[in-house]
Structures are given as C-alpha cells and as structure tokens.
C-alpha cells in the first residue's frame, strides 16, 4: 500500500459557489432566494422545524401523519385540489418527515412561481382538514407502514435500533410511529399541533431557480407577510438523554431468510464537530468495494453478503450504525466477531494516507452530486438555515469536512466506539 501513496496526490478541485439572498419577515419567517437560470424551473420549499421528536408522547407518528393531512386543503383550496393545482400547472410536489423536520416542496415551471407561493402560504396560514380526510389518511399511513416497514425484509431494523439506543429522548421512536396512537388522534390534536409548530417563526421558505429577484420578493411579501407569528413555539423535550450504561444485547425474530448483525453506538448530533469525523469513519469502514467491511467481511472471509456503516444525521443526538447480513450458513456470532475486529482496528491505528486521500476525493464527489439539482440545492439551503442557523453552511461545509485530520478520526473513534456505549442486535429468521 505504501507505493500507492507515494505516486498519488489529490488534484485541484472546484465546487460551484451557491449565491443566495436571505432575510427574515416580521413574523419570523426565514426567506432564502437562490437564482439559477440554467433551466426554466423554480423550486419552492418550506421546511418546518418539527419532526417526530415533537410527537406528543401519546401520539407517536403524529408529525408524519400531520404531513399527510397538509395535502388535504385550506380555507381556499378544496379537498384534493392541492395536488391537482400543482400538477395541472406542470409541477410536481411532495413532502417528507424526519425526526427533526418536515419538508414540503414543489418543482414548478418558472412562470408558475406565484401559484406555488400561494399554495405554501395557504398551507401555513389556514390549512383545513375534515373528518373524511383524517380517516382516509389514517388508513393510508397504516398501509404505508405495512408496505414500507412491516412487509419488507429487514424493514423494522431502524425502529429496533432506535428504541434501544435512546432511552428518554423522543428519538427512541421513529417517524412512522404507532398505529394505535394514530387511531386515537382527534381533530383537536390537529388544531394544537398546527398552532404550535406550523408558524412562520418555525419555518424556512426557499425559492431556487429561474425567477426575477424583485418579483419574487414582492410575492413573498404578498402571500406570507400577513401570516401571524406563532406564540407558543418551544421544544417540549430535552435535547439530551441518559447515557447508555453498558452494552445492550438483544435478538429480534423477523420474516427474513439470512440473519443480520447490527452494532449501533450512541453519538453526538450533526452540530457537534465530532459528527463529521464519525461520518468520515463510516466512509472509511464501508464506502465502496475496497473499504474494510466490503474487503474483509464480504470478499475475503465471505461471512457477509452485504455490510455497511453510516451515521444517522440527527439534530440533538446521533447514532452510528454498523450492519452485516450473514452469508448462507454463517452464524451471527462469527460475523459479529469479525466486525468487532475491524472496528477495533479503527481505534488502534491511524488510517493509511492513501485511504485518507481516497476519503477526501469521495467527499468532494458527493458534494458535487448534492448540488447537481435545484431540488438538492433547495433542501441543502433549508437544512443549513434550520439546523446550523447559518445558510452559508452550504458553501463552507466541504472545507470544514476536508479540514478534519486522520488524528481527529482516530480520536472520535476512540471516544464513541466503546462497548458500554452501544446496542448489539441479532436479527434471526422467525421459526415458520
């Protein structure tokens, strides 16, 4: 490996700088405008700083369920009209909910910018949902849970991890939540949640693409300035959690053919400097065919058919997940032991220069990819503002990551990859 190092260097790279304009309306709404006139499209998005961590204790899954309900309509938009208006204008729309935020967006032909702003302002000002809407979406969310989690092999892995890695923090449940809780949800829950979190001072509006600055600002003012500020905005949970005191081991029986091993460590959230170091560590462990996990677990020993490692990007706290799916006939114990050996390498030895340069090139390439679509840029702008309170994070994050040293990674791995800070799960085939 040493001769590889001596013959290679990282070549100069260039990453486009994302220009943007930003301001805050009197009601607290953050507005970010990014002009980009390559194609006659405009992306309008609203990121609300509310996710499943804000689900009321007895309403797990409510934030996500609520996202479904916000497609139902408003004082001025009838049930089912919302999507029809967007699609009839040649646009597309969607939304998603994470543990920390809910994100709504439309990608529109540039000349329909006003329509998109009108729709999002209606959603923020006076969304409306009737009992039919609530009952229908409850059924839809139930089928979503069955399709995407319960009926999929390994579909409940994340849920099983989160409920053990976190103790008191609401990260200990996942966005899809509990169907029993949603069955009990009432119209009043809807009103309360809307009043608390769907307010301009808890949101970021972005407009990206082909538009006139002046016109866009006038439209933002017209549709959003009169929306009243929320008065009851506060996080109702504590952002910290009790420490994991000792390793927690468990076996989960699932509808699968091949056993799986999961090792999950409690981590800091995305705002902590260590987060990026651990992200690089996961890339070193499992990014690509020549990574440690793929090379050793999948290729050399053939203990696993598939192996990976990633850090779950969360705001308050985090989790670093390593997994392997066992090859036919391999016992989970054997696979776990080998994973363990590889993990311990990362806190014993500093990684080779060659691997470190490889890592940097990979991160640069990933960043270019993230900025390759208007939608990607819009979401990155919104996230930077929501979580870092600094929109320009979109332009500085790469340098920040590239300034992390091999020593930082070693230090982070020693700090977090500890036996008493983790959950080990074996997923086993359910006896039929």
């Amino acid at each position, binding site marked *: 490996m040493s001769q590889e190092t001596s013959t290679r260097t990282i070549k100069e790279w260039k990453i486009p700088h994302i220009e943007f304009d930003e301001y805050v309306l009197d009601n607290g709404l953050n507005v970010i405008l990014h002009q980009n006139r*390559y194609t006659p499209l405009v992306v309008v998005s609203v990121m609300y700083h509310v996710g499943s961590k804000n689900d009321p204790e007895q309403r797990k899954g409510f934030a996500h369920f609520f996202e479904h309900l916000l497609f139902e309509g408003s004082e001025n938009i009838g049930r089912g009209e919302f*999507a029809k208006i967007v*699609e009839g204008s040649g646009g*597309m729309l969607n939304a998603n909910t994470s543990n920390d935020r809910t994100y709504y967006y439309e990608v529109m032909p540039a000349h329909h910018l006003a329509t998109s702003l009108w729709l999002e302002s209606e959603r923020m000002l006076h969304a409306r949902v009737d009992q039919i809407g609530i*009952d229908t979406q409850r059924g839809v969310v139930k089928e979503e849970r*069955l399709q995407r989690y*319960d009926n999929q092999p390994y579909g409940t892995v994340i849920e099983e991890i989160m409920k053990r890695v976190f103790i008191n923090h609401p990260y200990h449940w996942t966005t899809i939540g509990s169907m029993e809780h949603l069955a009990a949800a009432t119209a009043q829950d809807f009103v309360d949640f809307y009043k608390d979190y769907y307010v301009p001072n808890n949101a970021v509006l972005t407009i990206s693409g082909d538009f006139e600055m002046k016109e866009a600002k006038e439209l933002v003012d017209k549709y959003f300035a009169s929306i009243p500020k929320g008065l009851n905005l506060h996080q109702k949970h504590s952002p910290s959690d009790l420490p994991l005191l000792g390793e927690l081991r468990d076996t989960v029986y699932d509808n699968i053919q091949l056993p799986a091993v999961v090792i999950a460590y409690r981590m800091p959230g995305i705002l902590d400097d260590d987060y990026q170091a651990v992200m690089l560590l996961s890339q070193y462990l499992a990014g690509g065919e*020549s990574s440690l996990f793929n090379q050793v677990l999948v290729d050399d020993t053939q203990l696993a058919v598939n192996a990976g490692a990633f850090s779950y990007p969360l705001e308050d706290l985090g989790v670093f997940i390593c997994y392997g799916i066992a090859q036919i006939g391999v016992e989970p114990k054997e696979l776990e032991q080998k994973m363990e050996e590889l993990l311990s390498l990362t806190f014993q030895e500093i990684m080779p220069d060659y691997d470190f340069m490889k890592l940097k090139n990979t991160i640069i390439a990933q960043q*270019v990819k993230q900025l390759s679509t208007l939608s990607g840029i819009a979401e990155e702008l919104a996230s930077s503002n929501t979580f870092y309170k600094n929109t320009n994070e979109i332009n500085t994050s790469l340098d920040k990551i590239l300034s992390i040293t091999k020593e930082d990674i070693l230090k982070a791995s020693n700090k977090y990859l500890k036996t008493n800070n983790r959950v080990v799960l074996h997923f086993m085939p359910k006896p039929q």
Partner: protein
Amino acid sequence: MLHSFRQSIPLPSKPRNIELGKYEFHKLSNGLDIIVVEDHKLPIVNIKLGLRNKPQLQVQLKGIESLTGAMLGRGTKYKSKLDYHRALEFYGTNVGFNKAGFSTNVLTQYTEEVFDLAVEALLHPAFDEEELTKEIAQLNAGLQQVAFDAESIAANICNKINYGDLHPYGEIVTTENIAHFNKAEIINYYEKYFIPNNAVLIFVGDISLAAAVNLAQSRLSSWEARPFHEVDYKIPFLPQSTNFNIASKPSAVQTVIHVTYPLELHPTDVDITKISLTNKILGGGVFAARLFQNLREKNAYTYGAYSSLHADQICAHFDARGSVKSETFELAINEIFHEMRNMQNEMVSKSEMDVIRNSMIGDFGRSLEHSGTLARFAFSILHYGLPEDYYSTYIERLMSVSENDIMEMANKYFMPERSNVVCVGDLNTIEKAIHSQFPNSKISLFGPFGERIEQ
C-alpha cells in the same frame, strides 16, 4: 381582513421556452457509436457504455448476462479485484458494471484516470475462477431472500405468466440456472456481445466533444469488431380471459397485486404519445391519476397504486399495481378493472385531460434539468431510428391528443377482460376472497420463482 387575492389561483407570468440542448454523434471505424452532451455547469462527467443487442433467450443459463457484467468488476488481467477497486475508488468514485456495460460519475480532474480503469476492465477482464465462485455465492444468497419479499415474488410471476418460457422476459434466474455457470460460458457470452459494433459510449457533462472523441479513439480503436446476430421473438399471446395467479409470502401483512398482460408496442409506434397520456390519466404516477385517487385518496386501500404501459423493442406490457390492505385486496382489484373500463366507456373531460397533459409537459421540462436526458434522447434516435425532431416536437404531439383519442387508446390497449392478475400474500385470505368476488375464475398457484405448483 378580507384577502380576495387568496381565493383563487394566481395568474402565471409569461412562460419561458423549454429548450433542448445539443448532442453530438460520432462513430469509430470499429463501429463503436459515441454520443456526447457537453454541460459545464458542474465539474463532473458521466461516462456510460451500453450494449445494444436485444435480450436473448439463455435457457439454462438465464442470469449469465448479469453475471458477465458483474465479473467485469472482479479484477483484470493486471490487477486483482481489490487492487482494481482501490485504484478506482481513490478518485472518489466507482464504476458500476452490469449486463449492459458500465456507468460512472467522475470528477472532471480524474476523467482520464477513471476512463482508463473502466476500459481496462472492459477489454481485459480476468474472469478469475475464484472470483466467479464468490460472485455465484453472492447471487445465491440474494436468491434466498426472494421468498420473503412479496414484490420480488410478484415480479417473477408477472414475467412468467406474461411471457412464458419461450421469451427472454419470461426467464427467471434460479439457483438451478446458477449451477450451470462456469468460466467457459462467461467467456463465450462476453466474446459474443461485448464488441464495439454492439455498443454505444456516452459522455455527459464537463468534457468537450473533441476531448471525449479523442479519449474514445485513443483507448478503444483497437477494440475489435466481430459479426454478431440476434434472434427476434414472437410477441406472447394475451390470456383468453382474466385469470388469477397467486403465491404465498410468509407472515404477509399486505397483499401485493398486479393486473398485467403482454402487448406489442414498439418505441417507434405512432400511438406512443397518445398511449402515454392515456396511461398517465389512469395511473401514471401523479396524485391526480385515477388509480391513486380511487385506491388511496378515496378508499385508503393502499399507500400508492400506479399503472405503466411503456414501449419496448421486443415486447411491452401493461401493469397496474399496488401493495394493498389484505382484508380488501379483492375490492382494490375490482376498482382497477372499474377504472380501466371507465376509460373505455366514458369520454375523459377536457379539464381532467388538461391537468394530466400539463403535468406531462412539466415532466418533460423537469427532465431536461439533467443533461443525461438529452443523451437518452440521442440514444433513442440512434438506436430505434426515431426521427431527428422526435423530442423537439414532443410537446406539439402531446397537445394534439384529443379526448376521443384517449377513449380509442383505452379500448385498444386496456384489457380488463383478458388480464393476468397476480396476488402475493396470505394464501388462505387470497383464495377465499377470489372465490367469492370472482367466482368461476381460473386460479393458479406459484412458487417464489414463478414455478407452477400443482394443487
């Protein structure tokens, strides 16, 4: 406060033209076609090599196509698999090898280095025995998991029942086929199809036409052309009547349903644009489509229901599908038939057609944000022999479709009375419900790989 401006949809501003960018064709003397789309917005280049041959029957060797592709990524004559990927991944990328060739996204500054490595794998694969054994073990493990994945089981049965054993699309990879794979068979497949006169090389992104052609010329002009032939297959028959094909997925909590049948619909068919719009109204992936509105927004049977009817050079198929609530899956199937018949019997309204048509024009405009779309257009023009202005006149063609055309297409291409229905889930529930909802219809039982099970 009265905000009258809130009560209606704002007027749009002046529409901007959707402009198609430029693509360029070039051909090397060994027959290799080259397509280049320049786009210097970002410092990245996508390079893709695709084989052009039509899918062929492999009989006992089904799966050899993918296996050969995968083996290209398992080491070259000069580098072990690990050394190869270490060299490649240094540049922050990888090359995906598949049955049709390879594809990679590379930072501009490493274009040559990565292209050289891709070419090394393409022209000088090792086809090492030990690597082959590992690849087969991986394939086997993947097949093990099919039995617990309702969607994979359903896809296997759809292929089997639509196309049958005598058509390439009806062949399914099984552990049995895999046992026939050996090095000689792979070399045989490789030599037959991985030839320049059966390939197209596509560059999209931050590279000039001259540089791309130069790169291809200098690295690939020694790649030798050889004659090859391909077999054409008959379009499979439609079923005589609607029939049910069912399979068990252990501990199922939903039922995966498909309504499907084979069709003749070539990419050059004159009906294509009309059909796309007709299918989009039925279930083509928008919220406003009828299947989504009916099965999800009205009945909450499912998280999503969709239909597709894509052209294909050897055989197309219709497919309406969803993962639906087990207790009412038969009602969901009924609603799919209902919506198909409804489009045959009743004229679509102008306003509904306009919503869907506008969404298609929007799809087209959005797709052009990626220069890869232009390369795809260029490929279709080259490969299927579509007219040069095919895509620049697309919106015009779409605008000329009438309500009458939609009804005509629905009657010509929707076959609610002659469909293969596939249901995968809890067998007891499925059988009982079919007997009561669709009495006297034929039910066949299948295994996870589309194998018929006699009852």
